[in-house]
């Protein structure tokens, strides 16, 4: 009987726990800093630098949100989360914002009670092979030994891809990404499969990077982006438009170094609206008028963030899906007006 009561209480608490938490904006303002759930160890996405400051394209979303809401990009506290606990941490209110290389899927969007804002990196699973195999397409990989990191969705995607193309393969599993790379490097397998962002990084770490090529096929869609709780539309809009502001700024040519100049001198109405000189954009988001200016000035536009974090890994942007729509990519932000 007692146990029954406990269970009932617990279930009730779950309901309360997920139903509450409107007003994240007020919470953040009152607290004075943003709490951002992140990954702690993905180079280029989020990892601490030598000085201990988190760097990466994922944490830049956190810095940008803090800049927009609080006017200071450094008012962020990072909570490292594992893949399993990230959604609980978000829905229980432990973090205000989840920016942790999270793939947007139907299940997460609906059943888990989350809202995906937009994408700050569009990834997809691919293959890397030794050049001397002479393979030009993933469809020639029948019978290959494939190095793969266990316990990730890449395993499932791999199985699906080979089965749907009537091919056989021999999986060689590893626990961590560095081990997988090592196995490939030492010749335990012909092929390494992982998300393309990781492949490019892992290729640079091989003993002979020129001896390996990345095949053109992408066998899964992994649109990664910041996530917020469902049911708090004000906050949802803010995070979404923080991302849009970074992309729009790049499109309009506003960078951290010319933001001040453009704010004073630009006659372009698009630029003037982004920088808060014209219009009421900030107020409509319940932010100050210089919200986007703060983002661009303190964190930079999307291109700068990409340049700073992902180019050193050897993940080229030009013409890839992560380039602006004007340059052949698919990053397309609605206008700020």
């Amino acid at each position, binding site marked *: 009987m007692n146990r029954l009561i406990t269970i009932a209480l*617990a279930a009730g*608490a*779950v309901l*309360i*726990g*997920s139903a*509450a*938490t409107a007003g994240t904006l007020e919470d953040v303002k009152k607290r004075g800093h943003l*709490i951002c759930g992140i990954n*702690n*160890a*993905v*180079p*280029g996405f989020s*990892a*601490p*630098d*030598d*000085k*201990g*400051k*988190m*760097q990466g394209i994922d944490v830049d979303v956190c810095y940008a949100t803090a800049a927009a809401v609080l006017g200071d990009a450094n008012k962020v*506290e*990072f*909570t*490292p*989360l*594992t893949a*399993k*606990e990230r959604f*609980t*941490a978000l*829905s*229980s*209110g*432990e973090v205000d914002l989840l920016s942790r290389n999270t793939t947007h899927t139907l299940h997460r969007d609906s059943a888990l009670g989350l809202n995906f804002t937009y994408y700050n990196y569009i990834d997809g699973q691919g293959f890397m092979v030794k050049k001397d195999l002479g393979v030009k397409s993933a469809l020639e990989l029948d019978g290959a030994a494939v190095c793969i990191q266990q316990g990730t969705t890449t395993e499932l995607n791999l199985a699906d891809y080979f089965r749907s193309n009537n091919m056989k393969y021999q999986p060689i599993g590893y626990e961590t990404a*560095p081990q997988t790379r090592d196995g490939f490097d030492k010749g335990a397998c012909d092929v390494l499969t992982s998300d393309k962002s990781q492949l490019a*990084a892992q290729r640079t*770490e091989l003993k002979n990077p020129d001896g390996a090529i990345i095949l053109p096929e992408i066998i899964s869609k992994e649109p990664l982006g910041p996530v917020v709780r469902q049911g708090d539309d004000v906050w949802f809009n803010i995070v979404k438009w923080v991302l849009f502001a970074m992309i729009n700024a790049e499109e309009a040519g506003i960078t951290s170094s010319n933001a001040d100049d453009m704010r004073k001198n630009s006659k372009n109405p698009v630029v003037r609206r982004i920088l808060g000189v014209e219009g009421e954009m900030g107020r409509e988001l319940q932010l100050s008028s210089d919200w986007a200016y703060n983002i661009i000035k303190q964190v930079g536009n999307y291109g700068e963030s990409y340049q700073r*974090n992902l180019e*050193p*890994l050897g993940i080229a942007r030009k013409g890839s899906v992560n380039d602006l729509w004007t340059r052949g990519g698919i990053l397309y932000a609605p206008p700020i007006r």
Partner: protein
Amino acid sequence: MTEHHQPLPDLPPPITSTGVIGWMRQHLFSSPLNIFLTLLSLYVLSIIVPNIINWAFIDANWTGTDRTVCDANPNGACWTFINVRLNQILFGLYYGQHADQIWRPITAFIILAGLVGLLLLPRLRFKAWLGAGVLLLYPFVAFALIHGEWLGLPVANSSQWGGLMLTFILASVGIVAALPLGILLALGRRSEMPLVRAFSVTYIEFWRGTPLITVLFMASVMLPLFFPSGVEFDKVMRAVIGITLFQSAYTAEAIRGGLQAIPRGQYEAADALGLGYWKKTIFIILPQALKISIPGIVNSFIELFKDTSLVSIIGLLDLLNMAQTASRSIEWKGYDVEAYIFAAMLFWIFCYGISRYSQHLEKTLHRGH
């Protein structure tokens, strides 16, 4: 007059059975099989050891502030990486970022070392009071220093703690808090009151039957769902509570072993003196039982110290996880081995230290009966 027989003085043992040669004959070359094994081991060692020494010391990179030094000399270990990231690996994200605040955890540690040093002195007056003071007051002092809010220092929230500091906090709080709980549970399990006994047995068997990783996972993922979202329950605190509850079950079983080893005569003698339950337990039984249980208790403490790295499953950056994190950064990716070796070395130093201290304790408490 009787002539006393005077034996000649003993001859010294033959040179082949004393000193280094004798030791080697006896221990390394006593039979053909042992000769073979000795030579084989020497051969294997001669292959491995020079390589390790070359890699870890002679060819190693010690200087510099970025990876160019190490990339230029890939045959040696990259200790430059550990050197640059030392603050992060020892103190976690916050203190790794705010080097000017590192004096806070260091002060906390020095105070602790000083107090423990005092307690180790034999024949100190008011030792019991001092010990109680350390146990009850020191945690608050340490928290005030490391967290900072109470002292008006810049706040380092617990989600920002990490590295060796966090490992140390989790293990020491777990160990210290689990001991009294464990004693009570062990006594409870041997109690004659059915309710108390049933509770103790259930508690112990429940926690012993659950893997620590499950406990941590529940504490981190499930617990927050049971609270309304306004209630923020600190993650480190949740881990500490989980670890303490878990550890107390193991400590209790180690102590129960000690209790059972005490001969019945001791209980009966205490009863015959007219001592009540608590006096009997505190003055007669526990001192003996605890002494016997030291190896078992220490064993579980050492296990706990190492098990704390399981908190990486709930996203806390303990020593191991922090070292791993540092080796996954853009600046240093690829240098995982150095990170692991450094973490392993720190773990070894602490565990060996605990083990030596327990041997010392056993010796000083030995009463020869």
